[in-house]
């Protein structure tokens, strides 16, 4: 199966290991993976801030970059949910409407792709530790991917998965919200950090680096010892 990796700009620039792990997992399960160098950002920072034209500039670039891909798979529920919105955003645009539909239809979040498309629930991974899982808002509510990451996590040998209290609550990142409304964001992320601490987990696992860097950054600031870890790092073990 031919798959194009969508690294997300965040992982490409800040957390290269996340994209690397995603690539290696896809290759391990037999996919032929390419990485279109023309890809940039899904456009969400501009779109969610109300800058439609600026967002569309980036979105068009993304559609061009993946024009010839069969599947587009990336390690972020939030970024992939943005790609899935393109048909709605380009509705009525004679030049882009059809392309947006075709593009959205081939985009998947990595755990969704593994479980729903490839029908893989056990990657034979081993990871020792007590972990808790933060389900990111866009991944579960907009993309509708809820159980897939947990199914995969439960099948990792050595993992002790404990439930995060109020797991479904937003961590307070919200893209530009974190810097436009820092005071509210701080209260939200501090509450999330408290809930993580309650689980006494060693690792906070997530499928979105946006949320993880927000919660992890706050936990660092508070001197908490919990490490953040993207789910692909756990899955890409043997």
């Amino acid at each position, binding site marked *: 199966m031919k798959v194009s990796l969508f690294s997300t700009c965040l992982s490409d620039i800040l957390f290269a290991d996340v994209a690397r792990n995603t690539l290696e997992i896809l290759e391990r399960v037999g996919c032929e993976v390419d990485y279109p160098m023309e890809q940039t950002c899904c456009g969400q920072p501009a779109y969610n801030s109300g800058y439609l034209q*600026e967002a569309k500039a980036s979105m068009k670039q993304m559609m061009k970059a993946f024009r010839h891909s069969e599947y587009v798979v990336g390690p972020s529920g939030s970024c992939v949910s943005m790609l899935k919105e393109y048909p709605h955003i380009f509705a009525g645009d004679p030049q882009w409407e059809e392309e947006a539909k075709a593009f959205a239809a081939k985009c998947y979040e990595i755990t969704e792709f593994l479980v729903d498309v490839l029908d893989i629930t056990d990657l034979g991974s081993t990871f020792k530790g007590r972990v808790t899982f933060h389900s990111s808002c866009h991944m579960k509510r907009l993309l509708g991917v809820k159980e897939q990451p947990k199914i995969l996590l439960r099948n990792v040998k050595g993992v002790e998965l404990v439930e995060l209290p109020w797991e479904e609550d937003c961590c307070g990142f919200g893209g530009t919200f974190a810097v436009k409304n820092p005071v509210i964001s701080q209260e939200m992320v501090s509450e999330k950090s408290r809930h993580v601490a309650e689980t006494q987990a060693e690792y906070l696992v997530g499928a979105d680096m946006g949320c993880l860097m927000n919660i992890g950054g706050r936990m660092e600031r508070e001197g908490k010892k919990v490490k953040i870890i993207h789910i692909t790092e756990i899955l890409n073990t043997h």
Partner: protein
Amino acid sequence: MSIKIGEVPYKERIQKGIKDDFMRQAVSSAQGRFRTGRITQAEELGNWEDWRDLGEEIRTHTLENLDYYLQQLSEQVSRRGGHVFFAETAEEANQYVKDIILKKQAKKVVKAKSMVTEEIGLNKALEEVGAEVVESDLGEWILQLDEDPPSHIVTPALHKNKQQIRETFAKKKGYTGSDTPEELAAFAREQLRQDFLAADVGVTGCNFAIAESGSITLVTNEGNAEMVTALPDTVITVMGMERIVPTWEEMEVLVSLLTRAAVGQKLTSYITALTGARLDEEVDGPEEFHLVVVDNGRSKILGTEFQSALHCIRCAACINACPVYRHIGGHAYNSIYPGPIGAVITPLLEGYEDHKELPYASTLCAACTEACPVKIPLHEHLIRHRQIIVEKNMAPTAEKLMMKGFAAWGSNPSIYNMSAKMAKPALGPWTKDGMIENGPGPLKAWTDVRDFYAPQGQSFRSWFKQRQKDGGSK
């Protein structure tokens, strides 16, 4: 009062909310109860999503045919001896009610809970013509005694705890009892009973008006709407023009969604229905009934991309699900309609100028959209508001410049590539052990609250290029 509560600037309101530990404790525990209740009720029904679909369908159909149903309602109310008045503005609505009060020489007006009368500032208008107005919903009564605006659309005194309520009763009504809820409620009941008996006019809001029968219905847990509609000789119902359903059948669906979504109850203790005035052959009902249908900006929303905001049945499920609301409380929104639905409809009804921060008071986590029993895409409406604020040139200049930069960066792979290469060395001076504690420029607002992760190493694309050079995948 109007929709806007006061003149305190946004940032101060947020600070005030966040520093109010009593309020936050009260809101947080109420949210926990309401959310758990809603989710339990949804699970018990089993097919909650089907119910939501049906709720959405009913609201969409009704709003698409609003003119037809309003006319039908008007005819039915008139046929049953009631008077109907369509008010385009708050002033027109208030004037109509004032005229009745003056004509009746009414001294005392008793009210059942109503958000639309808060919206139009009816109490103040009636006090201007010398009437004493008494709120009979327990939460509203507490707020009226305390001269405090509501902070929630279903439980308006949510921000107060029982100690504060006891103090209010003591100060304003000479209460000497304890702060047990039972004793406080018994005191309120005893006080309000006198008001019900003495009132010349009853004023209610309306949860759902039934077009087919000309009835208005009210949902309460205290039964006060029964008293307001049964005891005074004259009853006036004030309703937002969208608060209508075609028949009792749709009402049954929506009321089931409303009480479940609002507080996790299968039904409220009372559902009050009133159909017109007392006719000659009837034994009960008011001698005179007036229905005031308020537009006040609603018809401007019809036919726009925000039309579904009018589907709202005022259950507050979005408010109870909202993590932002939990931390800042209702008053921080500076609108009698707080939370996600408030952030959507307040700028629509009163304009952006006074409320331009509201669409940004959300992380777009979509907990509101998920909770809404009639499937209003609340977070999408918030994004649309943000777009309009940008279109109206009301966004900050620095943000506009940054977004121009974003467009150039996102649409041009060579600029993007350069940034991917430069990120690590550029952030080098601020980086210590892979973390940035005091970020420069736009990173500052981030690092004021939390650390920022410096780039791990080379960008993924550099690594990938290198790997291809080295012979591709392992």
